[in-house]
């Protein structure tokens, strides 16, 4: 596999990652959201493997496998179970309307492109053009957390953001050291568990996972 083909494959996968991010931004159904998240993880893991192959960095294979097991199978499974237990399969409500969210998302992509322009000029890596997409994925994850009202969608947004960060690390410097990546993976896993436990508590307290309800916690009203 020569460098040009690899670059093309990586760009293609980056585009798919971005597509998944936008898909999550506009998806209304809970299960659809989780599936999209799993797909994003899959593309990410393939792309990591390809980068590892091209750059000859073998520890990237491990992080690719880690991504695959954690973000494609384990976390979606946990979320699945969570949704079934809590019986919250219905449509997700959004705060801002969907077309508006899309436009903001597009603006974020352009903004990240502009932001990463200096890096692109000095970097010599195959993956340099992907950096803008990775940054955009992070921002769209954050945007998703802002525009959604449901706690479960917020955690998915958080996880999507983490995907973006991971992607950025792979594309900017061919990945972080393995120890760091393992640590981050563990963190994400634990965060997911803690979130899960919290959801149960929130659900029993408020009878809903709508984060707007938490406004009631404010003092003084």
């Amino acid at each position, binding site marked *: 596999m020569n460098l040009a083909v690899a670059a093309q494959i990586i760009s293609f996968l980056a585009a798919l990652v971005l597509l998944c991010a936008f898909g999550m931004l506009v998806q209304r159904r809970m299960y659809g959201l989780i599936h999209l998240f799993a797909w994003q993880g899959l593309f990410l893991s393939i792309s990591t493997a390809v980068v590892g192959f091209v750059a000859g960095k073998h520890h990237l294979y491990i992080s690719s496998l880690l991504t695959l097991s954690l973000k494609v199978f384990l976390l979606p499974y946990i979320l699945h179970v969570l949704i079934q237990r809590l019986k919250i399969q219905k449509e997700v409500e959004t705060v801002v309307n969907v077309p508006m969210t899309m436009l903001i998302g597009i603006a974020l992509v*352009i903004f990240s492109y502009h932001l990463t322009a200096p890096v692109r000029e000095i970097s010599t890596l195959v993956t340099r053009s992907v950096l803008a997409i990775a940054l955009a994925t992070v921002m769209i994850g954050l945007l998703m957390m802002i525009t959604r009202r449901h706690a479960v969608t917020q955690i998915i947004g958080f996880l999507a953001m983490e995907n973006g960060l991971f992607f950025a690390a792979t594309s900017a410097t061919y990945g972080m050291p393995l120890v760091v990546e393992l640590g981050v993976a563990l963190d994400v896993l634990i965060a997911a568990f803690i979130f899960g436990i919290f959801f149960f508590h929130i659900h029993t307290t408020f009878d809903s996972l709508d984060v707007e309800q938490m406004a009631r916690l404010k003092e003084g009203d």
Partner: protein
Amino acid sequence: MNPGPIEFASLSVIALLVAALLTPLFSRRQRLLIACCFGLTAAASLLAVVAGAWTVSRGNAEKIVMLIGLPDLPFHLRLDPLAGFFLVVIGLLSLFVSVYSIGYVKGFLGKRSVTSLAVFYCLFLAGMYMVVLSDDALIFLISWEVMAAASYFLVIFEDERIENRRAAFLYMVVAHVGAIAILLSFGVLAGLASGFGSFDGYTFDAMRSASFPIGGATAAFLLAFFGFAAKAGVIPLHVWLPEAHPVAPSNVSALMSGVMLKTAIYGVIRITFDLIRVFPWWWGAIVLVFGLLSAVMGVLYALMQNDLKRLLAYSSVENIGIIFIGVGLAMIFTSFKLPLLAALALTTGIYHVLNHAMFKGLLFMGAGAVLHATHERNMEEMGGLIHQMPWTAALFLIGCVSISAMPPFNGFVSEWLTFQAFLLSPSLPSPLLKLLIPMGAALLALTGALAAACFVKAFGVTFLGHWRGHHRPKVQEADWPMRVGMIMAATACLLLGILPTLAIGWMDAVPQQLIGTSLGTSAGAFGWMWLTPVAYERASYSGPIVFFGILAIVIAAYLLLHVRPGTIRRVPIWDCGFEKIDRRMQYNATSFAMPIRRIFGFLFNVKERVRISRRTAHRAFPARLYYSLHVRDRVWGWLYKPVIRASFWGARKVGRLQQGRIQAYLIYSFVTIIVLLVFLR
């Protein structure tokens, strides 16, 4: 001495001024006055067209220095290709509208004296010609004011209605705020050209030969753009336009929308490309952004209107936006030293100037014919007019198709060229601009599609279906002069649409003059049939083939299917077998725009109220239902209300100075004199 184009143009202006002076003499015999005055303006306009067309095809400039004016500050006139092109635009539409006016103004006979209309009409035309002819700041501003004042008196012509007086006042205020900005801009330029101590910099020649520091030039440009944008009705400075254009007599509305706005475009082009010449790219970006904003918002507002002429006025805002898109792109390309692309973008801009003059003039003339026949501007009260006014309907339809950018008419050509200009933006060196500018193409596409919806509504609700109003007036078709005026404009729309190559080849002198490159070699490289901007491989369009192709297939299909004669039966409306159909069940202007109002509603201030009358057995079967809808400009609340409030507040504060005692006023004068003496020692 052989008379050249500029003598023709001056003669045309003189003829108009003479007409304005002589017209009051005929005020006893109104019918004769109409025929003479508008016949004369038509002849004068023809003269201006000849002068302009001649100049553009010769491609050189002529000058006259007049010995009148202020002492030591004579007036300068100049006719170069840019001025000549705008002279043609203004002259052509004035010619059509003047012919139309012979029929239209007769509608006022017996109701009011038309003397003032005729006088100010002549002055208005003369003012517009002088604006494009003038070659120094002084006469430019004088002509600008003549144009503004004459149009003010035309707007207020039917002055018994309070809304007309309000609209005219608003127009006057905005026009003067704009004029002040233009005056300041010229002041800055003149000062920088020759030093602030002397007056020599007031001629455009002096400004052309000067080189401006970037700070001063930017200040001048921003002031000028503000002033011209106010005149052109660029959003957010557009509020006067939908008030003033509809209330003027329709022939005047046609001229105001069709060509008066274009003098502002002329001003922007003149100042940037001709006087300042060297500018940074972000000037173009400003023009482009405001152009896009006006295009999209203008057409959305147009869609929400129920008043036919108001709809057309808002659509002018949209088209001005499209023109500014072309001009803005040309400025960006020029600043990055891409002359061929700049020439393409500028050509799209000025071609749309010409096209918009033709179809908007045609549409306002059509709206005038409808108004003349029905005494109604509200579309909700119209419908089915195609049966009583077949000529007007067909001609109005041509206008609608042209403005909606449908091939083979002219609106499409300029929109297509604008798309091509947008698609060339990847040649820009800046990566961010490469990315952002094609987004503008999407907005332009949205504008085009919404314009089509808007004009389906305008034509469909006005001319199709059944009469929607309460009482039905006796409707008569427009008379011959009106028809001839409209037919000429419609023919121009068609010809400019199917023969764009000839038109663009002719107007190539303008980019040649301003940018130094022309499209001529590439645009018409494959003969008059094919329009190929930039390169043949890139894109091509053949207006004649599209037109004759569709025509041939339609005729062939029609003939083939009419071998069996007499197979059409006229029957009552079917409507899925529903029997009790009546005309109140039709879609009207409000309901047609409802889906779009819901989708884009957040951009407007929409107040929708449904009230169900109490006397009803069940909520689902109300006896009566009241529905009211108010769609307002948000800009009014955001921008103008605060300004108005602030000026009232200021006025109240100043009002305290008014004491009513003579001593107090004497003290004011005394203090002023003391202060002046202290400062001007």
